[in-house]
């Protein structure tokens, strides 16, 4: 029996069992064949297409759409995978509205871009459902590459490296592969355990070994890896969460949004997942939206996102913001956390201060308000944990608190590359950007190994 929306505290089972399945079904249901053909016919096959330029992995979008339109979905999938072996996940999680679809000339022409993301999903789903593999390994090179992190960057790098004949070992701290695809994406964006299916699809090429439960700086060390392997790629993402810098943030009920999202994704029974009645999410990015919307879908009564700057500054795309408000989430701008209120050792509310820009600097106005809350999510960004690199003999240079790399992904250490969220230029922290970084680093590594 559902306990309902009105029970105070952080409680499981707020909804009737059937509601969970409904609420967490596919956000963008797959196109069926007819829908895909109708949509594909809308593509103009632009020259040097703006959509393609907007794609961090430079997928030849007009070509893959034309291949769908001409009844060649497998050829279409290959066009996608040639540039982005995680094209299936990217089709689901890419903020296409700020990438390819924003650039689509039909967005300019009539405000309705070709649904590139959903077409990409149509083609990649077709290939994956058929178990169609397009790539084989080149003759063994005898070279070994270690990869830290089985997330999008690491998997993309691994696939490209093994295709060149190099043996790849991935060390992954978590029990499952996939990185944020597995632990960090809202459940309704990756249904039916897609992240694991994709890992299986990517690694089916062979030559990729994944060792789980191996964390850098704890179980493995960069110094050893760089000696034992011909090359190393670091793609371990971000381990730390930024602090609220608000009094009382250690109270029971103050949770890292990324942990909540991960727990939700790993849950096999959402009705057992506790969620607050009144929730405040601090932050303005995708993580804030994912945490807020999913809280609402779990049955939270009031969910408010509090962001310290204006709407136009939010990292979450307009589509994501609309998704949140459509789900009943309230988004408040120009407001920053000051103090977490605690009653009986638990969160009872949060005191926030209004903010303004003064002289180009964000400052509090001194005026405050209190929102009642039994759960507060911190979603104000993650940080790179450089401690993991400690103890490595070759010292890796950092930049802005993350790993410094050049345009090919080379770090300051000769045979070590890095990519994805752990590098300074992480290109907006997107899955698709991580894939591009991993792929490009793999090309660079291959050139290095074959030199």
């Amino acid at each position, binding site marked *: 029996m559902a306990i309902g929306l009105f029970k105070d505290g952080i409680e499981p089972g707020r909804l009737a069992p059937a509601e969970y399945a409904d609420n967490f079904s596919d956000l963008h249901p797959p196109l069926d064949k007819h829908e895909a*053909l109708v949509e594909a*016919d809308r593509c*103009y*096959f*632009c*020259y040097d297409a*703006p959509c393609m330029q907007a794609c961090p992995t430079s997928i030849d979008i007009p070509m893959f759409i034309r291949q769908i339109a001409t009844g060649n979905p497998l050829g279409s999938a290959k066009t996608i995978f040639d540039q982005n072996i995680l094209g299936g996940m990217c089709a689901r999680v890419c903020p296409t509205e700020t990438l390819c679809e924003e650039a689509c000339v039909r967005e*300019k*022409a009539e405000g309705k871009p070709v649904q590139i993301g959903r077409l990409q999903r149509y083609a990649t789903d077709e290939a994956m459902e058929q178990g169609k593999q397009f790539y084989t390994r080149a003759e063994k090179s005898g070279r070994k590459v270690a990869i830290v992190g089985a997330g999008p960057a690491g998997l993309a790098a691994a696939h490209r490296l093994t295709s060149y004949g190099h043996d790849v070992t991935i060390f992954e701290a978590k029990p499952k592969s996939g990185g944020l695809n597995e632990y960090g994406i809202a459940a309704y964006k990756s249904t039916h355990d897609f992240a694991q299916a994709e890992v299986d699809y990517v690694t089916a090429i062979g030559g990729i070994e994944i060792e789980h439960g191996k964390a850098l700086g704890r179980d493995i060390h960069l110094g050893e890896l760089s000696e034992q392997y011909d090359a190393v790629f670091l793609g371990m993402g971000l381990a730390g969460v930024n602090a609220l810098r608000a009094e009382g943030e250690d109270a029971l009920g103050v949770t890292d949004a990324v942990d909540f999202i991960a727990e939700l994704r790993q849950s096999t029974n959402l009705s057992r997942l506790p969620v607050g009645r009144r929730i405040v999410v601090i932050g303005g990015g995708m993580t804030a939206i994912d945490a807020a919307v999913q809280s609402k879908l779990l049955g939270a009564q009031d969910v408010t996102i509090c962001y310290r700057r204006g709407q136009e500054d939010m990292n979450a795309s307009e589509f994501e913001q609309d998704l949140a408000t459509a789900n009943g989430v309230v988004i408040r701008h120009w407001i920053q956390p000051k103090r977490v209120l605690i009653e009986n050792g638990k969160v009872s509310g949060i005191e926030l201060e209004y903010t303004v820009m003064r002289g180009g600097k964000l400052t509090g106005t001194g005026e405050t308000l209190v929102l009642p809350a039994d759960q507060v999510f911190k979603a104000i960004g993650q940080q790179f944990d450089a401690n993991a690199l400690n103890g490595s003999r070759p010292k890796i240079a950092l930049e802005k608190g993350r790993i410094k790399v050049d345009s090919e992904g080379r770090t300051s250490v000769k045979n070590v590359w890095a990519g994805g969220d752990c590098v300074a230029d992480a290109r907006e922290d997107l899955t698709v950007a991580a894939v591009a970084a991993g792929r490009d680093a793999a090309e660079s590594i291959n050139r290095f190994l074959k030199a």
Partner: protein
Amino acid sequence: MADIRNNFVGIKSPNPFWLASAPPTDKAYNVVRAFKAGWGGVVWKTLGEEGPPVVNVNGPRYGAIWGADRRLLGLNNIELITDRQLQLNLQEIKQVKKDWPDRALVVSLMVPCVEESWKAILPVVEETEADGIELNFGCPHGMSERGMGAAVGQVPEYIEMVVRWCKANTRMPVITKLTPNITDVRRPARAAFAGGTDAVSLINTINSITSVNLDTFSPEPSIDGKGSHGGYCGPAVKPIALNMVAEIARDPETAGLPISGIGGVTTWRDAAEFLALGAGNVQVCTAAMTYGFKIVQEMIAGLENWMDEKGHQTLDDVCGRATKNVTDWQYLNLNYIAKAHIDQEACIKCGRCYIACEDTSHQAITSSVNGVRHFEVMEDECVGCNLCVNVCPVENCITMVPLAAGVLDQRTGKTVSPEYANWTTHPNNPMSKQAAE
């Protein structure tokens, strides 16, 4: 308000939109529905001679090609003339004409190429009080293998002969329907004219195979793994039909011969174009078969609206207005110079104009200016070919702008001459007819 009443060789109808002889006009049920929807007339599906009717295939009769979003662009068929009893058709024709006296009802006929056959059928058709007959000399499949349809239409002497028999044996107006499956459509038109036909109608369908099934390697439409050519029609054939209508309309040998225009008429605009090139009315089939009879209402309203806008009061004000502008290539003004111009406000930056020009034409469009994606015509390279206009997905984004006389053509470095000058007098023409000095 424009008056679109039509008088075609004495056959009157409330508008110039007739349904062509085809499946939509095979029986009273369909024809009555068409009249209710507003069609001005019909040409009843072709009748054959008395006796056991023809039989049709029992599998697919139609093949097609499509554009984006599966818009039907071209249809082909392997259906034959009516497969219903002659008497049944005649009874229905008589009843429909009686019930719908203000609509045109023409009967399409196809009987063997002997005078007795025509002498036999003409009186029974006349008895229905139908308004006229149309001689089906166009059907390209099945019937032509039996010496009828296109088999007659491809031999001008036969056309003239049969038309003469018909004119001698009936008081009804005779419309001769022509096949496009010939080299020069003026020849059969001249033959029909010589035989005394009251009008010609064209085009009938074009020999065609619409596609091949790549699993079975059978042409489509496939009958038990085999296919034969069918008759092609629909929007895709309109340009061919327009040209053939114009060829006849401007042929001095058949001057004044009324033409019923057929071939891909889908909208009022298509119809107006046929009329402008010299057709007295139009016949429609594929558009009705694709969208149903209701489309005639769009055609009527659209034609009236356009005529009102332009101040044309009757169809006579429109008919043939474009005919005199159809000429031979050698008479086109070579001093006329136009350049493509891209409206930057309307441009959506798809770049198709650029790649079409760059890959396949004259390298006259930029793809970027100062590192920014920007498509602009380079007038010093543009030959005015119009390809960019045609590949642009936005209507009127690229237009052809004529250069005024006296202006410098940056491509040739010459000023535009105000004089008309064509190939016949051009210095590069070895046959140039310049006067001796």
